[in-house]
């Protein structure tokens, strides 16, 4: 019997596909998310829009909060560690969370290196803005990738940019000849073996979700049609007027992403979505998606 093989680590992400992973900050919110059909929850102290508004250093959530959320639901529980902060990752593994998100939403701890994710039994998900970044994270051992978007904005534009960057480069790789893979690996800053694998398979070797800016059922349908295999929703649920209905509606839209009539139906009477932020209004040094190397 073998635990924590790469197959087992990637396998949980495969089971989450077609689903919605929701940010929660209390056990009560976790239960609301589970009742609305979330396939997993992300246990946090503050949602990204609050981190953005309040500023300061954003760290791993308190262990007792993560444990309370793990006790509150039967679905998988993820938690975030700072980029490069293997001390936090070790704590999260000791707590027994189901997935660690090495996340740009928290303040980076290392401005050069990410965590060596091969060293852990618990699987990791990492953000990426393009294919090179995705393959670097997979090279480090990530078992799941999410396009970054710009967390806490309720603005889908960056999510679309990153998802399209990843999928269009994958398509491009498919038309290159083997003699072009090495120079493409150099251009992308990605491991050659992974470039070769993606060129051959026409997809990432791990599951690809979309994150950062999903606030409505139509947002979820949009990114699913662009090639996301599932959706992370952060502030979009519990910063909306009616979190329970909004959560259930985004779950249904993620399943029926090619059925506009169903999306129209589930989008009715949800109340106000979370307030959004125009990207131009955010100073460049405050952009979270730029964190990651």
């Amino acid at each position, binding site marked *: *019997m073998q635990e924590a093989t790469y197959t087992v680590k990637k396998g949980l992400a495969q*089971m989450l*596909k077609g*689903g919605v992973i929701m940010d929660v900050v209390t056990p009560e919110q976790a239960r609301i998310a589970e009742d609305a059909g979330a396939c997993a929850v992300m246990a946090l102290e503050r949602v990204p829009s609050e981190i953005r508004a309040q500023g300061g250093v954003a760290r791993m959530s308190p262990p007792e909060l993560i444990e309370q959320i793990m006790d509150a639901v039967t679905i998988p529980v993820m938690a975030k560690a700072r980029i490069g902060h293997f001390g936090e990752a070790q704590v999260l593994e000791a707590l027994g969370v189901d997935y660690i998100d090495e996340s740009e939403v928290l303040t980076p701890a290392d401005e050069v290196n990410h965590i060596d994710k091969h060293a852990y039994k618990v699987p990791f998900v990492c953000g990426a803005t393009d294919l090179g970044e995705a393959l670097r994270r997979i090279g480090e051992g990530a078992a799941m990738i999410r396009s970054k978007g710009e967390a806490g904005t309720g603005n889908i534009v960056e999510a679309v940019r990153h998802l399209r960057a990843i999928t269009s480069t994958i398509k491009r790789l498919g038309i290159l000849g083997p003699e072009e893979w090495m120079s493409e690996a150099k251009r992308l800053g990605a491991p050659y073996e992974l470039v070769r694998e993606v060129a051959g398979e026409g997809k990432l070797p791990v599951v690809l979700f979309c994150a950062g800016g999903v606030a409505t059922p139509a947002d979820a349908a949009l990114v699913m049609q662009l090639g996301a295999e599932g959706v992370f929703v952060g502030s979009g649920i519990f910063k909306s007027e009616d979190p329970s209905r909004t959560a259930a509606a985004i779950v249904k839209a993620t*399943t029926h992403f090619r059925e506009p009539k169903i999306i129209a139906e589930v989008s009715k009477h949800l109340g106000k979505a979370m307030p959004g932020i125009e990207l131009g209004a955010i100073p460049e040094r405050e952009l979270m998606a730029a964190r990651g190397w």
Partner: protein
Amino acid sequence: MTDDFSRLTIGVLALQGAFIEHVQALERLGAQARQVRLPGELQSLDGLIIPGGESTTIGQLLEEFQLLEPLRRLIGSGLPIYGTCAGTILLARDIGGLSQPLLATMDLQVERNAFGRQLQSFETDLRIDSLGKAPFRAIFIRAPAIRSVGPGVEPLAWLEDGTIVAARQARLLVSCFHPELSGDDRFHRLFLAAVLEAQQEASAQVDRAS
């Protein structure tokens, strides 16, 4: 091993979870696969797979999109079903008092997350007599376990400690592990052979009736 599955149309419940992997396994074996998200897509199927995923999510979507009753009727009329992991939970009559929408049609007592959380997920080789001599690589992801079975249920696979991890009851087949992740299609072949057998039985009945 020369069964022709090309005339079979097998539905794969595609509400949430690892359904594409089942579609690919069915297509490798020559069967037609149809993703099922709405009741209309249940029409004229020869069999149905309920994939792994989160059983709470899938159960709620089954309820919301009015699939529970039509599926129970199809199971009652003898449609062959194969459930993996979450599919096992959804088919079981007893999941230890947890309240979540279920099909509840198979005489199993199932414990969710029976081995623990993701850190306790594992893969292992199983000897499964119905699949031949070669061991089957079984992948368990936050898996359920079958704690007891009713009289009509035939256990098919066990862990070393005796835990039942696959079973069959009439035309219902379940596994707590994920054959769709292992690349070994013998479990899917077993299911498709059972679908063919069910069709032959049905046509024999029609012949007798006429």
